[in-house]
């Protein structure tokens, strides 16, 4: 009896996990489309940072904490700063 209950619970949990992944992937897609369409480079940089952060959540959720850490620090942190510094020197509108 208890065995079947735990099995059912496990099944439910797997489904909830997949749902969480789907939500994250939908957010990723939204960010990606936004980055491709925006003309304001500063906004693109910020959106790219958000994209990296969501991707970091996907990695962490998929059981890859090493990659998640790198993604958070490099993608969401340093790359954004470097982009913004470059944008501050070359101007923020795409021609």
């Amino acid at each position, binding site marked *: 009896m208890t065995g079947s209950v735990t099995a059912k619970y496990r099944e439910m949990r797997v489904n909830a996990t997949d749902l969480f992944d789907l939500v994250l992937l939908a957010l990723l897609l939204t960010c990606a489309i936004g980055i491709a369409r925006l003309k304001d480079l500063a906004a693109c940089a910020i959106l790219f940072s958000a994209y990296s952060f969501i991707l970091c959540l996907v990695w962490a959720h998929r059981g890859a904490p090493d990659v998640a*850490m790198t993604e958070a620090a490099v993608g969401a*942190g*340093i790359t954004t700063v470097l982009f913004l510094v470059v944008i501050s*020197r070359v101007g923020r509108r795409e021609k």
Partner: protein
Amino acid sequence: MNRRRAGRILTAVLIAALAVPLMYGMVQLPAPGHADAPAHTNVSAGYIERGAELGGSENLVTGVLLNFRALDTFGEVLVIFTAWLAVAAVAGTASNAERDPVPPSPVVDYVIRLLGPFIAIFALFVIVNGHVLPGGGFQGGVLLGAMLILLSLVMDAETVARAVSARSWIWLRATGVLVFAMVAVMGLPLAGYLFGLPDEPGLRQVLTVALELGIGIGGGAVLAGLFFAIAGADRS
């Protein structure tokens, strides 16, 4: 107008032509995390079973990176160093950026000065424990670089860049490559082949931590160097 429309239709057709086979392939992939998937039945099972013992570190990822695929990782470290060389060559000679007229807020200034050393300690912790916990040289190095960039936001990038002389910066940036090359060569007498780690567990751990430290310091210095070069604070 008409041509543009034709172009759009062509794009849509091409994308559809690409998407159909991709989707067809995706449907045939095994479910993510399925135990019978080819990715889980062949080589990775071997890694998981014997990786900790053969690779010399409890964190399998570190073991694979620094031992089984040391050559790849060496390439990665070289790429990072080369990236800095390229950016320094292009941007390093650019004139200095104009000074920001607004001084940083006293609140931000105080908090970053207060937290900076703690970030450095955390970075070091991540580097040194890379063989046991998630993390390692690359991750810790990025944290170190981020700390230097954060400090240069409140302290003026040139002051931070000048905390170490230009020549020492170059050596620091090359640390990863140099330490890795040294350990690789030491593999010849100790393990019998290049990039080999010795069988003796104590020595192997020391070399692993040395590699992590080298990668961390080198990576952090390169990232900070990229920032200084692009922001025009680099005089080297």
